[in-house]
């Protein structure tokens, strides 16, 4: 248990308000919660990779950041026209 893993657990707690927003609010607010949680998850993977001393897992954080960008744009465009 080092300081990086402690910070990672603190960030996991930060996902709870995002989940509450995603479950209870109207659609556009859910998109905001999803964006915030994807940012948190990518930072979380950085901290976990550092905490477990696995440098190869840093690629995972990069992948999550890139793919969640595309996903959020697609959701925004979808909510703009339909639903």
């Amino acid at each position, binding site marked *: 248990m080092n*300081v*990086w893993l402690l*910070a990672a657990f*603190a*960030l996991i*707690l*930060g*996902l*709870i*308000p*995002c989940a*509450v*927003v995603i479950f209870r609010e*109207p659609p*556009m*607010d859910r*998109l*905001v*919660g999803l*964006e*915030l949680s994807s*940012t*948190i998850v*990518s*930072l979380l993977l*950085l*901290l976990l*990779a*550092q905490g477990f001393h696995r*440098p190869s897992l*840093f*690629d995972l*954080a*990069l992948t999550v*950041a*890139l793919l969640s*960008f595309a996903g*959020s*744009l697609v959701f*925004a*465009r979808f*909510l*703009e026209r339909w639903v």
Partner: protein
Amino acid sequence: MQHALATLLLAAGVVVVLMSCVGVLVMPHLYDRLHYVGPASTLGAFLIGAALVVQDTLKQQGVKSIMVVLLLVIISPVITHATARAARIREFGRWVVLDEEKTS
């Protein structure tokens, strides 16, 4: 010394991210919520990335975490703008709204 500085930066970054989570939960309206995505993905990401770089200077981890932080900082305004644009188009029907059509 290096480790203490990294811990300080890390704690600051985590606090920024958690406070922006609380902000998203507490704020009543969509545009108010959208403000709080900004600090998490620019300031929080910058502080956490700085902690990682301070911990082990520019090894492979450092370079990769710099890449992730740069990516998040570049992406965040784009996402915020796209979301606000979608919300406005949902609200008014199109992006450009004349002054006399505004309801509030």
